[in-house]
């Protein structure tokens, strides 16, 4: 009897084995649930005014707070109700997807969106547009034409500016075309259109303008939006590349990681070009010991102009262009006291 049971088990296992051989195991791709901040009033809410909803990338961030401030100022000055919401992680496009649905359920007059992912959020933008609701993008474009206008930094150009600044600062540091110079790059997220354009712009300018002996190390670091990870891999990178002369951080988180690591390791010999005006970068830019520059976007203008533009569209005006480069300023020790730069820094 036992032999029979054993045989039956063998037969069942055989059939299962054969079936298992035919198909590779499927990976469970389920992601953890996103953390989002639901819609809150940004301005005083009054009846009879247009309701504009702003969806930002990251709520708890200095950079995004400046954009929110710009939108709030516009809402108060231009007499409309502005609500805002966002995610807690810059890569959380699923959270934004939920927020778009939440906003649409509130019958908005217009939507302002800073897409966390240019590809994944494209269909959400298409959906809003198809409902006849004006949609204005800020900070990051999306791979769709279904938006009314986009206010953002031309990141390809901003990347070129960063490369130009890096070359300029390295020359000021005393390096000539005959010297071997190497530069490392830390990106925040490999799937971000903004970051990829800044990277592409940097590479493009560097390959066209840097001396032949000046190279970008092909081992590009990626911290995936994680500050602590960014510090760790930067520290390891400094050990692996003792010859390093420059570091480029493509956005806020890697810029902070570069700034914190450079300061911790006291690497005053390394030139840093970064983005945004985080505390870590601000300290180094203002310090006489470090050679650190940063590219600042005019994000206050993005927030303000986006609200202004939605009201124009709601008034029946069609924007003459689809893409407005809000421009950048380069901040370093030489330009720190420039009034124009000071104004942008004040907003940051």
């Amino acid at each position, binding site marked *: 009897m036992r032999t029979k049971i054993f045989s039956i088990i063998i037969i069942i296992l055989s059939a299962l084995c054969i079936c298992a051989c*035919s198909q590779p195991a499927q990976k469970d791709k389920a992601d953890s649930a996103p953390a989002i901040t639901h819609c809150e009033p940004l301005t005083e809410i009054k009846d009879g005014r247009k309701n504009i909803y702003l969806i930002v990338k990251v709520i708890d961030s200095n950079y995004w707070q400046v954009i929110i401030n710009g939108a709030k100022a516009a809402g108060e000055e231009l007499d409309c109700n502005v609500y805002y919401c966002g995610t807690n992680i810059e890569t959380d496009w699923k959270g934004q997807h939920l927020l778009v649905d939440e906003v649409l359920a509130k019958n908005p007059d217009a939507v302002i969106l800073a897409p966390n992912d240019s*590809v994944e959020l494209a269909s959400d933008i298409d959906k809003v547009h198809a409902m006849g609701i004006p949609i204005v993008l800020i900070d990051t474009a999306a791979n769709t034409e279904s938006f009314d206008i986009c206010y953002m930094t031309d990141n390809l150009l901003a990347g070129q500016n960063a490369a130009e600044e890096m070359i300029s600062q390295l020359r000021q540091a005393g390096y000539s075309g005959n010297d071997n110079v190497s530069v490392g790059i830390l990106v925040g997220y490999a799937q971000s259109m903004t970051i990829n354009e800044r990277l592409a712009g940097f590479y493009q300018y560097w390959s066209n303008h840097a001396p032949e002996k000046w190279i970008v190390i092909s081992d590009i670091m990626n911290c995936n939006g994680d500050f602590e990870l960014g510090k760790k891999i930067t520290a390891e990178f400094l050990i692996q590349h003792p010859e390093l002369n420059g570091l480029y951080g493509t956005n806020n988180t890697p810029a902070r990681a570069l700034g914190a690591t450079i300061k911790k390791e006291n690497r005053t010999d390394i030139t840093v070009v970064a983005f945004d005006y985080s505390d870590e970068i601000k300290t180094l830019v203002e310090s006489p010991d470090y050679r650190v520059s940063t590219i600042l976007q005019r994000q206050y203008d993005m927030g303000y102009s986006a609200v202004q533009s939605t009201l124009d569209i709601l008034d029946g005006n069609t924007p003459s262009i689809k893409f407005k*480069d809000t421009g950048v300023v380069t901040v370093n020790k030489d330009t720190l006291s420039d009034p124009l730069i000071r104004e942008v820094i004040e907003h940051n």
Partner: protein
Amino acid sequence: MNNTRSKDNNIGQDIQLIKGGRSFFMTLIICLAVFLGATGVLILAFNRLISRHDQYLSSEICTIMSEKMNSSIESMTEAADDMASMLSAQNYESPEDIYAAIKNNVKSDYLSAGFIDETGEKYATEEEIAEFNKWELLKTAALADPVSMSAPYRSSVYGQPVITMFTNFEYDNGRNGYMFITYTFKELQKVAVTESLENDVEIWLMNAESGNIIQCAGPDEHAIGNWTNAYLSMKSINEKDIPTFTAWLERIRHLENNIGITYSLDNTFYSQHCSCIKSMPGWYVVVRIPSNTLSATMHKFRNYVISFLAVLLVVVIVLIANMYRISKRDNELLERLSTHDPLTGVLNRRAFNIAAGKWILRKKDSALIFVDLDYFKQVNDQYGHNFGDKVLVAFSDALKKNFSDSSIISRFGGDEFVVITEMNSVEDITSRMRQIEKDVSDITLTKDNNEQINYSISFSSGAARFPYDADNLPLLMKMADNALYEVKERGRNGSLWYADLAVDEDDPT
């Protein structure tokens, strides 16, 4: 205790003259294991074959696609050059006239078009002129020989990635300018896309020096125009393929043409091929295709084969199990026939010898009893053989009834039975024999003519004890037989223990 008894009861039934049950299952398991092993090897070999085939084929497709894309771009540039030549042949004198002529002749699928005269002055809209300054497009125009294309950039007017193409334009008797045409990056998707592999092939433009990549075509239409960098995306491929990928990028940096590579990414195998774009110095068309696209059909076929094998296996197993069941039933029947007396159902002599041999090995106190029906020949002669058979059956039933526990009963010869049984005491065995005497002393049997008669069976028996009288079976049987013989000598219809026989022989009286 019950289990022990039950096991002992089966001693007589356990005799297997035809063996093979266990070995059959072992053979079945071994065959199954061999079958599974062979099937596994077959699947692995099939997968490897598909993989090699796909790698080769996808590489070839990539090469063809990149050449197709490249020649499509060439066609676009040639068309622009032809239009410039055609307009140039009109020999316009003023740039304004040329600009107007260009605007009139440009096809609707272009976003914008304009003219740059010999001094570098641009004849275009304000927004377009702003783009020229922003992206230093005059540098690209200077590369036209006779056509050049800019790197992709985002148009302020359209908000989308665009490319501007420049062609040399001769006007006003020998002056040289440029005609430019700007079109969306999606125009490239139109020339790149193929219906058959639309959802699988990815096509990019890549800058050799920087490794910058922009997508022209792919399964996700929203990803068209997306920038990335080969050095960054390289980090996500299979680690063992990174050195090959790095070498591939290095060859591109050295402007080698028509270079292919294969690598794995997220458990998918990709073939990738690139070729130079003549009108965009330093830029390549890169085509990538996942090899599993091609193998999808083959995988279906493989799954059909596996399903067929699985069904075949089940059918064969069911068939074998059925055959085994029939064979086992026949064997059991044969075995029973070969071990049991067909009339009484007790063991035959041969089977008894085997079973008793095993019994002795248990070394338990036992009694072996030879029983002989008295004057049985006369029964046959008087009542016939059928009646005699009924007597034998009735007697064997009495034996079974009284020695059903822990005993082996056998019809040893015509009217001779032998029993070997566990012995708690001589008295117990004697008591059972007395009970048998009672049981068969008055039985009712039916004659051939259906007449029922009361019949009394008498028998003689001789018994010996194991291990007291003998410690081996032949001797034990001999002693029991001696005791039986003595009973017969004394006039039959009685019982005697061999031990008593020895005492009697020693007794001088």
